[in-house]
C-alpha cells in the first residue's frame, strides 16, 4: 500500500443548487487510491458517494458545481482540466461501470460494436486488430462464447453477462483507475458473487486502482482493501478494511455495521399447530405471442407449489429474480389468478372464488409492496391512503380517517402527518404508510413482497423491527418474500427456497440455512457477500 496514489482528493467540496436539502453534496472530502488496491466508499443513499464519482469524472448535473479542493489524477488536477482534457481522461485514464448495465448500454447496437467504439475513439487501430481485442476482452471477463456475445444486443444477454460486457468496455484501454458505482446492486446474489470475484481477479492481474462504491457492508468485507465511510457528504471514517469492519471507531460506522443482519437465525419461536394458510399444487403459466398456438412462448412462472403457514408464523419465500416468488405472492392475494391448485385461507378456497367474492374477502389477506415510491398514489394524502380500505368495505369516512390516525401511531408515524402527501415522506416512512394501509383492514395474513429491499440498511433494520413487534402484538401471520437471505433469517420461522418456479427446499429457517440439502440452497448461502466477516460478526455479537 506504500505505492504512490493514482487518485487523491484533497478537501473536495461540491455545492448543490439552492433549495436542495443541504448546501453541499460533498464537503471537504479527502481520500486517495493507489494502484493495485480496492478502496470501498460506503454510505447510505444521500451520503454523496455517487456524487463523488460524478465529480471525479466531471459529469455533474446542471447546477451542481465543484467549489473547493482538488482532485489529483496522476498529478493532474481534474477540477481544473478543460473539457477536451477530460475527454482524454475519461475512458482511457479513468473508466466507470454503473449499477444498471441495461440502461448504460445502447439497446440498438451490439455489445461488440460498443466495446469496439472505445478503441475507435481513443486509438488508431485497424478494424481487424480491434475485433481481435474485443474478443480478447470478452474472453477476459469470462463471458461464455465471446464470439456470440460480441454479436448480441444488450437485451439478449442476462444481467450478469451485461455487467461483464460493461466491465470489458471499461477495461478496454487499460485505465489506471476504475470507478465502480454499485455495480452489483441490481444483480442476484449468485451473479453478484461471480462479478465481485471477476473484479477482484482483473484488478490484481492488471494492477488497476479501483474505487468501489457500495451501500452493502457484506460486499465491502468481500472485496475491499481499504474503506471510506461517508455520511451527509463527509468522510466520517477511513482505514484498512479489517480495522474498520472489526473495530469501527465512529458511531455511525458502528450503527451501519450493527444494522447488517446476521445470516444465523435467532432461536426458533414456538409455532401453532394450526395452519391459517395452506397452498397446494399452485401453478401459473404465462403464454405470450404466437398465433393459433404457433410460436407462442410459454413460461412456467410457478410450478406445483405447496406450502403451509401456521397461525402467527412467518413464512419466508426466498429466491433470485425470475424464480417466481413474486408471482406466487400475487397468486396468494389473487392479483394474479393461478391456473391450478388450491389456496386455503381459514378453510376457504381462495383460488376458486369469483371476482366479487375475492373483493369482499380481501380484508382477511393484505399485501405490502416493494417500492415505497410506486405503491402509494401520489395524489392522495397519507391518512386517506390508509383509510381507503375500510371506506371501500363500508366504514364511514370520518371513522376511517380517525382510525387511520391511530394506525399511524401504531407504525411509528406522527398522527398529524396524515395531511401530507406521499412525496413529503422518506422511503422508510412511506413503507410504514404502506404497512398501515395493509393493517387498516385487520387482516389475518399479511403478504409482504420485498418490503425492505428498497431501503437503506439502518432504515431496513427499523422496519423489520416494527414488523416483528406488530406480529407479536396483532398475532399476524406473514408471508415474507425476499431475495435477501440475511433478512429472511431474521424475520422468518419457516423458509421456502424457490428456483425457476419450483420450491426446491422448505422447512424451519435454522434447518434450511444451517444444513441446506439442495445444491441450489447451498450455492445461495455460499454467495451471500461477506460470509466470513458475518460469521465473525455473529460470534462477536452472541
Amino acid at each position, binding site marked *: 500500500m506504500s505505492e504512490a496514489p493514482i487518485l487523491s482528493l484533497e478537501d473536495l467540496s461540491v455545492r448543490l443548487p439552492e433549495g436542495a436539502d443541504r448546501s453541499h453534496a460533498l464537503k471537504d472530502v479527502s481520500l486517495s487510491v493507489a494502484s493495485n488496491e480496492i478502496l470501498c466508499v460506503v454510505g447510505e443513499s444521500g451520503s454523496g458517494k455517487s456524487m463523488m464519482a460524478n465529480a471525479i469524472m466531471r459529469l455533474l448535473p446542471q447546477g451542481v458545481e465543484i467549489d473547493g479542493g482538488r482532485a489529483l489524477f496522476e498529478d493532474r488536477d481534474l477540477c481544473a482540466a478543460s473539457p477536451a482534457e477530460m475527454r482524454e481522461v475519461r475512458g482511457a485514464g479513468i473508466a466507470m461501470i454503473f449499477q444498471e448495465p441495461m440502461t448504460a448500454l445502447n439497446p440498438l447496437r451490439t455489445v461488440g460494436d460498443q466495446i469496439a467504439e472505445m478503441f475507435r475513439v481513443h486509438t488508431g487501430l485497424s478494424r481487424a486488430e480491434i475485433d481481435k481485442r474485443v474478443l480478447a476482452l470478452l474472453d477476459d471477463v469470462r463471458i461464455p462464447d465471446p464470439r456470440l456475445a460480441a454479436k448480441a444486443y444488450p437485451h439478449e444477454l442476462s444481467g450478469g453477462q451485461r455487467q461483464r460486457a460493461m466491465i470489458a468496455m471499461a477495461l478496454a484501454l487499460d485505465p489506471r483507475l476504475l470507478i465502480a458505482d454499485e455495480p452489483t446492486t441490481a444483480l442476484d446474489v449468485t451473479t453478484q458473487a461471480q462479478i465481485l470475484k471477476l473484479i477482484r481477479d482483473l484488478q490484481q492481474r492488471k494492477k488497476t486502482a479501483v474505487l468501489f462504491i457500495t451501500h452493502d457492508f457484506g460486499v465491502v468485507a468481500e472485496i475491499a482493501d481499504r474503506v471510506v465511510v461517508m455520511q451527509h457528504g463527509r468522510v466520517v471514517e477511513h482505514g484498512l478494511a479489517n480495522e474498520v469492519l472489526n473495530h469501527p471507531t465512529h458511531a455511525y460506522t458502528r450503527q451501519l455495521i450493527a444494522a447488517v443482519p446476521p445470516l444465523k437465525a435467532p432461536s426458533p419461536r414456538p409455532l401453532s399447530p394450526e395452519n391459517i394458510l395452506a397452498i397446494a399444487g399452485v401453478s401459473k403459466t404465462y403464454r405470450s405471442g404466437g398465433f393459433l398456438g404457433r410460436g407462442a412462448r410459454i413460461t412456467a412462472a410457478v410450478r406445483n407449489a405447496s406450502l403451509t403457514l401456521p397461525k402467527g408464523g412467518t413464512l419466508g419465500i426466498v429466491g433470485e429474480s425470475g424464480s417466481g416468488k413474486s408471482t406466487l405472492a400475487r397468486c396468494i392475494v389473487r392479483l394474479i389468478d393461478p391456473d391450478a391448485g388450491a389456496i386455503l385461507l381459514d378453510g376457504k378456497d381462495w383460488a376458486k372464488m369469483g371476482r366479487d367474492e375475492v373483493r369482499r374477502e380481501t380484508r382477511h389477506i393484505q399485501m405490502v409492496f416493494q417500492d415505497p415510491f410506486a405503491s402509494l398514489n401520489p395524489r392522495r394524502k397519507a391518512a386517506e391512503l390508509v383509510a381507503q380500505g375500510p371506506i371501500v368495505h363500508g366504514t364511514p369516512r370520518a371513522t376511517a380517517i380517525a382510525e387511520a390516525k391511530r394506525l399511524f401511531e401504531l407504525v411509528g408515524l406522527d398522527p398529524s402527518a396524515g395531511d401530507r402527501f406521499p412525496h413529503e415522506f422518506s422511503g422508510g416512512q412511506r413503507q410504514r404508510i404502506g404497512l398501515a394501509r*395493509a393493517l387498516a383492514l385487520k387482516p389475518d395474513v399479511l403478504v409482504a413482497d420485498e418490503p425492505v429491499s428498497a431501503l437503506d440498511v439502518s432504515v431496513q433494520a427499523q422496519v423489520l423491527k416494527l414488523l416483528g413487534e406488530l406480529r407479536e402484538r396483532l398475532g399476524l401471520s406473514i408471508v415474507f418474500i425476499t431475495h435477501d437471505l440475511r433478512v429472511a433469517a431474521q424475520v422468518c420461522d419457516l423458509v421456502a427456497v424457490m428456483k425457476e418456479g419450483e420450491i426446491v427446499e422448505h422447512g424451519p429457517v435454522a434447518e434450511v440455512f444451517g444444513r441446506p440439502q439442495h445444491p441450489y440452497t447451498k450455492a445461495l448461502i455460499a454467495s451471500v457477500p461477506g460470509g466470513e466477516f458475518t460469521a465473525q460478526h455473529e460470534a462477536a455479537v452472541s
Partner: protein
Amino acid sequence: MDAVKRYFRSPAAVIGLVLLLAVIAMALAAGFLYPRDPLALAGRPLVWPFTNPRFPLGTDNSGRDIAAQVFYGARISLLIGGVATAIAITIGTLLGAFAGYYGGWVDNILMRITEAFQTLPNFVLLLVLVAVFGSTLTTVTIAIGVVSWPAPARLTRAEFLSLRNREFVQAGRTLGMKDLQLILGEILPNALPPVIVYAGVVMAVAILLESALAFLRLSDPNVASWGNLIGLGRDVLRVQWYVSAIPGIAILVTVLAVSLVGQGLNDALNPRLKQR
C-alpha cells in the same frame, strides 16, 4: 402551488393568459357595449375602418358593424371552443381509460373504432355531420366535439397502459376496490395532466374548425361568428380586404392565446421536461 409559480415564470405563458383574458373580457362586454343585435343593419355598407367614429372597425358588405360582430364573435368562438373541447375530452378520456385499463379485446375494439375516426380527415367528417344534421349552433358544436376525440383517447390510453400495473393500483385492488373505483379514483387523476394540456390544442383546433365551416358558409348563419364574417368578406376580398382580415386577426389572437396557455400549463405541470 408550485405549478402556479412555475407558470408565471414563463413570459410566453403570461402573455397567452393576458390575451385569453382579453378575449374573455370582449365576450363579456359585448352585450354591454353593443346592446343592439350585431347582425342588424347599422349604416352604409363597406365603410373603411377608422373613417367613421360610429364604426371604429368599419362595416361589412351588408352594412353591419364589424366591431360589434367581432365582440359577439368572441362569445361564439369561446362557446364552441369550450363546449366542443369538453365533449372531445370527455369521450376521449373515457374510451381511452377503458381501453387502457382492460386491454385485450376491449382495447382492440375501442382502438379500431378510434382509428376508423382518425383515418378520416376530421374536416371531411365534420362536413358530413353538418350536411346530415343541419348547421345550427348546437349541431355544429357537437359535431366538432365528435370529430376531435380520437387524439385525447390515444393519449389517455397510453397513460393508463403505463399506470395500470403500478403498485399503487395493485394495492387498491388488494384493498377490494371495484374496477370503476380504480379507474376513476386512482388512475385517472394521475393520467389527467397531459390530457389537460392537450385540451388547449383541441380548443384551438375547434375554433379553427368552426371558422373553416363558416368560411364555407356551412356554419350557423344566424349567429355573429368570426368565421361567418370572414366568409362574407370573401366576396370583397380584393378591395375591402379588412372585412375578412379583422376577424382573421381575432381568430389568430385567440388561437395563439389558447396555445400559449396550453404550452405554459405543460411546462408548469411537467417541470422536469422544461429543464432539459
